[in-house]
């Protein structure tokens, strides 16, 4: 397996946190490699971002492409890759492992975000993309007039139901909890919607179908104990996101939800490994927060690198290195 020279900083993840970390580390004259499965992470799949300061309204992917271009302008390199392990070495350096490479580096910044949470019920995986979807904005327009179920009780579930309702025959919102946890303005729209039925205290038990198409969702009312089948052809699962950081467990301290525990300045439990953005224990998952966390992680990594290499650093972050 190929192993090239020692990098300064390897960043795992190319969303708001990872790309901002790349920008800040590169502007401190460090040699930076960003490894990511995609450009922009979750933010890139958000059609409209309206709350990034200074930007009125922008497509998520467009914003993330700007982040990437800006980091690259200062010398950060971006590579599509899947990281499978990070191995701390006896000499204080780290090896980042991908299917084809072992990449040696002084510092690592983990910023690989969260993944869609699945229901974990029979029939779900088998029908993924064949009627079960985790992306309500990914429904091709030629499938109109269908009976649809949206599973979830949060803002994204209610918004998905509202978005799908105008072109659906009927939408059933299936919520495991007794109440919906969504913004007031969104709940108001839900009450006004004509073809949405909201079910609460209802657990999804099984996706029914023949392996090529979905024909129903078997559900159970928590209070009554009765099971019934909702005759739906599409099931949208909108139950939030989950940390898939199993590969760092055993190396780094994580919380019970699998999120990487960090200090206020993005240090993990291992010196030289930093973490930023949604994969960490920070409470709020927003583009602007992830960007800030990525900057913090890079600046803390900079301090660390100056210490381990014995170099004096660039102490200011303005006016330097324009290309």
């Amino acid at each position, binding site marked *: 397996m190929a192993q090239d020279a020692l990098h300064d900083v390897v960043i795992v993840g190319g969303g708001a946190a990872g790309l901002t970390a790349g920008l800040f580390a590169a502007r401190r004259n460090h040699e930076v490699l960003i490894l990511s*499965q*995609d*450009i*922009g992470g979750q933010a*890139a*799949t*958000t*059609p409209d971002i309206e709350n990034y300061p200074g930007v009125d309204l922008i*497509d*998520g*992917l467009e914003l993330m492409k700007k982040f990437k271009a800006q980091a690259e302008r200062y010398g950060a390199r971006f590579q*599509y*890759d*899947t990281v499978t392990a990070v191995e701390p070495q006896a000499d204080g350096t780290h090896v980042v492992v*991908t*299917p*084809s490479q072992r990449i040696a580096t002084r510092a690592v910044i983990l910023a690989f975000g969260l993944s869609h949470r699945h229901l974990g019920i029979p029939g779900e995986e088998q029908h*993924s*993309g*064949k*009627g079960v*979807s*985790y*992306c309500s*904005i*990914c*429904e*091709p*327009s*030629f*499938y109109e007039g269908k009976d649809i179920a949206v599973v979830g009780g949060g803002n994204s579930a209610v918004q998905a139901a509202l978005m799908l309702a105008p072109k659906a025959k009927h939408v059933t919102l299936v919520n495991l909890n007794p109440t919906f946890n969504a913004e007031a303005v969104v709940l108001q729209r839900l009450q006004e919607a004509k073809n949405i039925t909201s079910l609460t205290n209802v657990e999804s038990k099984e996706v029914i179908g023949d392996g*090529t*198409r979905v024909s129903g969702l078997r559900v159970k009312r928590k209070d009554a104990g009765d099971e019934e089948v909702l005759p739906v052809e*599409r099931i949208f699962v909108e139950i939030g996101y989950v940390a898939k950081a199993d590969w760092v467990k055993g190396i780094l301290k994580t919380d019970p939800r699998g999120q990487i525990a960090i200090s206020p300045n993005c240090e993990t439990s291992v010196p030289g490994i930093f973490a930023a953005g949604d994969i960490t224990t920070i409470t709020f998952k927003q583009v602007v927060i992830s960007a800030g966390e990525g900057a913090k992680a890079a600046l803390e990594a900079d301090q660390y690198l100056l210490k381990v290499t014995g170099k004096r650093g660039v102490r200011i972050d303005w006016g330097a290195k324009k290309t």
Partner: protein
Amino acid sequence: MSEVILNDQNFQKEVLDEATKPVLVDFWATWCGPCKVQGPIIAEVASEIGAAAKVGKLDVDENPVTAQAHGIMSIPTLAIFKGGKPVWRISGVQTKQAILEELKKAM
């Protein structure tokens, strides 16, 4: 090799009648955010795999006949066809490694 733009008219010839190479098809649409994330990954797959496989893109809105014939219910959906038959199919954004691995399996 660059990507082939597929449509209802050329799908039979370019994909189903391709006798030797596996064909990767990216079912997508212009309005779909995740498809735009998938797009540059597909371009890298096409350039890396070279002449060993064919890589095509089909806009499901422009070509509903093919999309519906193949039961595309969510996009992006990626499929690999070999000898005119689908041998692999998955929905949601996929990594470059995962796609290359599946293409190599189909060779």
